[in-house]
């Protein structure tokens, strides 16, 4: 038997009949495949959104810049000026409560004494009342 005659015998084989049920089956499988893909896409989008949300949130709603601490930022007086501040505060309170002239006089004398004895180069001004 020649190769050609063998090929002819194989080519002459009857074609198996296509089952008519195959198209409905394929159609159903295709519908399921599309649904599955839709679910996968939706799931992927949800996961992507969950992953991206914190990033987007931090980009769009940036946290407020930290406010400087009023106390920490306030320039503190050198230690040698502290007695002066105390006397100044006492003077302020004395004026507020309407202290006697004598008391006020004593406080002013104390303040002048501290200012003289202290090494502060700049004498702090008393608070305005």
């Amino acid at each position, binding site marked *: 038997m020649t190769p050609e005659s063998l090929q002819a015998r194989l080519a002459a084989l009857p074609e198996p009949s296509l089952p008519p049920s195959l*198209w409905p089956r*394929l159609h159903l499988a295709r519908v399921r*495949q599309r649904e599955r893909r839709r679910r996968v896409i939706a799931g992927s989008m949800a996961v992507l959104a969950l992953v991206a949300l914190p990033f987007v949130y931090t980009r769009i709603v940036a946290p407020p810049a930290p406010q400087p601490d009023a106390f920490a930022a306030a320039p503190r007086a050198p230690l040698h000026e502290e007695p002066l501040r105390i006397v100044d505060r006492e003077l302020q309170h004395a004026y507020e409560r309407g202290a006697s002239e004598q008391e006020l006089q004593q406080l002013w004398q104390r303040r002048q004494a501290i200012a003289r004895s202290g090494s502060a180069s700049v004498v702090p001004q008393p608070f305005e009342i």
Partner: protein
Amino acid sequence: MDARVPDHAPEAHLLRRARRGDQAAFEALYQAHASAVHALAFRLTSNAAEAEDIVQETFLRMFGFLSGLREDTPLRPWLKRVAANLAIDRLRRLPRTGTDAELEGLTDEARMSPADAADAEALLRRLPPLARTVVWLHEMEGWSHEDLARRFGHTASWSKSLLSRSLARLRADLEPRGDASHDP
């Protein structure tokens, strides 16, 4: 102008419609090619259920790959290539069998009825799955030994040797009794 264009124009039109989700176009493409794909799958597997599975998977892949299909080339070779690859994948998943030993076993003519001996289809079915696939793809589908070797993960020599022994077996069985001239 390309002479092939008018031949594929209706198919290209169907492809365009199918890409837009036209259900009738899908069905028309299926009706145009399913018989050929099914025949190939059946020849390679010799199993009706497996052939139907392969047809289904082939068309599902086509539907999923519509945007990548070229309109200027016929669709059927692509479909047949996909079906053949699916059949080969199934074959490769089977537990390894001794194709050589099976081919040798076919010389036992006591197992073959006279009717079978004259029936090329029955003889083809009796070939080991690997030998049957190589014979059909090479002889009827025009696959080269290089194609077969690449797809099966062997050398072209392996493909040539298997094909030669399988064809010799087929020819011997198809020769009329008493007129057998065995190939070397």
